[in-house]
């Protein structure tokens, strides 16, 4: 629009993504703008659809856990664990106690590392590079702990049907918890910046508002839902060892990007407390039971709480070694309608912040 034209400014359509410096994963938007305000957004996914749900019909059901883990890099352990839980429900296997507590340990470790990664990306979205790298530096220690206990930094590789594949040992777990202590202090210092710094607050408060009613109707899950005041956390079902741990969902009411940052910071703090409790209460014993033979005919539905929200697994078996159907409904898939709603009304410079606020994991969404 050149300045000497006196025509009324009409809407402009700007394509956003799939390659964009702040997007961790490819996602495309056609943003309709009037001046600098977004009035409509049409998302487009499908850049990394790999058809992993069809692949389950070709792989042995015990080997598929390794593929399920690689649906996504950041939420990988819980995908493996959810698949294992779904198959174990069909088989009727009872997983040993120590395996349940180890799975809880690794789930919470994954939550911490995922939220720290997200804090860095969210800081990057509004240009605060120093905070981005400070968060990721804190995350390095957490990932080193993951490697020492499970063998892999990001993809743990420790969930198998029937339990877990390795036992790090109580000594290693206690040593690792001591190694994470400085990280907790660092995160408290960084939280002061997130909460107290006026420029951060200016970029985040009031941006991307989703009301409680809209979040509930649009089917949002996870921190997106809890930041709008709905008290729902799938861990309250008490799966794995969560039934034996002190735990309350972290809920905020403001419904904007700042509230989602606060929910995730609160969840990091809560996860550290849960990790302490898990390492203190871990029982002794074997860590897996052997699984042989074909699974019986049946189906199972499992819901877990991933860092990004509630994830649902559905497995149906037809009695052979290849499962008939495996379905993952990931939290980002459920949050996309809420994100599209939140984008309307923000200015163009805030679009990356709002997109990142649901913690988009497009690999999970598209399997």
């Amino acid at each position, binding site marked *: 629009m050149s300045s000497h034209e006196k025509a009324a400014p009409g809407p402009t359509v700007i394509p956003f993504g799939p390659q964009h410096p702040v997007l961790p994963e490819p996602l495309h938007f056609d943003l309709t703008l009037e001046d600098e305000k977004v009035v409509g957004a049409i998302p487009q996914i499908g850049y990394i659809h790999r058809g992993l749900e069809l692949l389950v019909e070709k792989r042995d059901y015990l080997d598929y856990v390794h593929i399920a883990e690689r649906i996504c890099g950041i939420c990988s352990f819980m995908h493996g664990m959810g698949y294992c839980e779904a198959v174990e429900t069909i088989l009727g296997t009872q997983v040993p106690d120590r395996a349940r507590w180890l799975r809880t340990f690794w789930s919470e470790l994954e939550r911490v590392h995922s939220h720290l990664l997200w804090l860095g990306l969210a800081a990057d979205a509004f240009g605060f590079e120093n905070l981005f790298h400070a968060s990721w530096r804190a995350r390095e220690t957490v990932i080193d702990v993951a490697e020492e206990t499970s063998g892999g930094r990001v993809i743990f590789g420790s969930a198998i049907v029937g339990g877990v594949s390795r036992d790090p040992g109580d000594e290693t777990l206690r040593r690792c918890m001591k190694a994470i202590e400085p990280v907790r202090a660092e995160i408290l210092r960084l939280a002061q910046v997130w909460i107290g710094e006026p420029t951060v607050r200016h970029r985040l408060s009031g941006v991307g508002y989703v009301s409680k009613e809209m979040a509930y*109707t649009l089917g949002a899950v996870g921190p997106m839902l809890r930041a709008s005041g709905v008290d729902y956390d799938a861990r309250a079902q008490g799966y794995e060892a969560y039934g034996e741990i002190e735990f309350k969902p972290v809920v905020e009411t403001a419904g904007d990007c700042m509230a989602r940052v606060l929910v995730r910071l609160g969840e990091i703090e809560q996860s550290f407390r849960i990790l302490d409790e898990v390492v203190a209460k871990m029982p002794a014993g074997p860590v897996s039971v052997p699984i042989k033979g074909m699974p019986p005919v049946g189906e199972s539905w499992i*819901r877990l709480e991933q860092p990004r929200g509630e994830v649902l697994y559905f497995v149906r078996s037809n009695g052979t070694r290849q499962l008939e159907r495996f379905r993952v409904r990931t939290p980002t898939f*459920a949050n996309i*309608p*809420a994100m599209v709603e939140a984008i309307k009304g923000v200015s163009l410079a805030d679009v990356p912040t709002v997109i990142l606020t649901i913690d988009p994991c497009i690999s999970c969404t598209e399997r």
Partner: protein
Amino acid sequence: MIEREVLTVEEIEVSKLIPAVDALRAAGWRIIQILGVSGADHIELNYSFGLGMQHRILRLMVAPEAEVPSITSVFLGAYLYENEIRDLFGVKIERIAVDWLGKVYDPVEGKAFSKITVIATSSEGGPR
């Protein structure tokens, strides 16, 4: 066995879908997901709803050319699930509130997840 949530599966017919979903919405349930499973001659649709720790599933058996009404009039957030099911299974879902016109994954061949073999009618797959 992992028994930790109250799970009920209810089979209903296509004509009763919207009233049942309306009743759930009025009672405060939220939509969790919509899932499709392909049988040899029909597609099974599972609508999941949640309230607290409860999980209720409405199950529909859909013949290949049957039409299913969209529940986006009740739960707007269901549009992504319905678009995906329409693209991957070929189920005819009518009047979806936000319609992506077959471009969710934009595959070369449509109905990739459907195992129904259509003998006489023409296929709508093929390069887009």
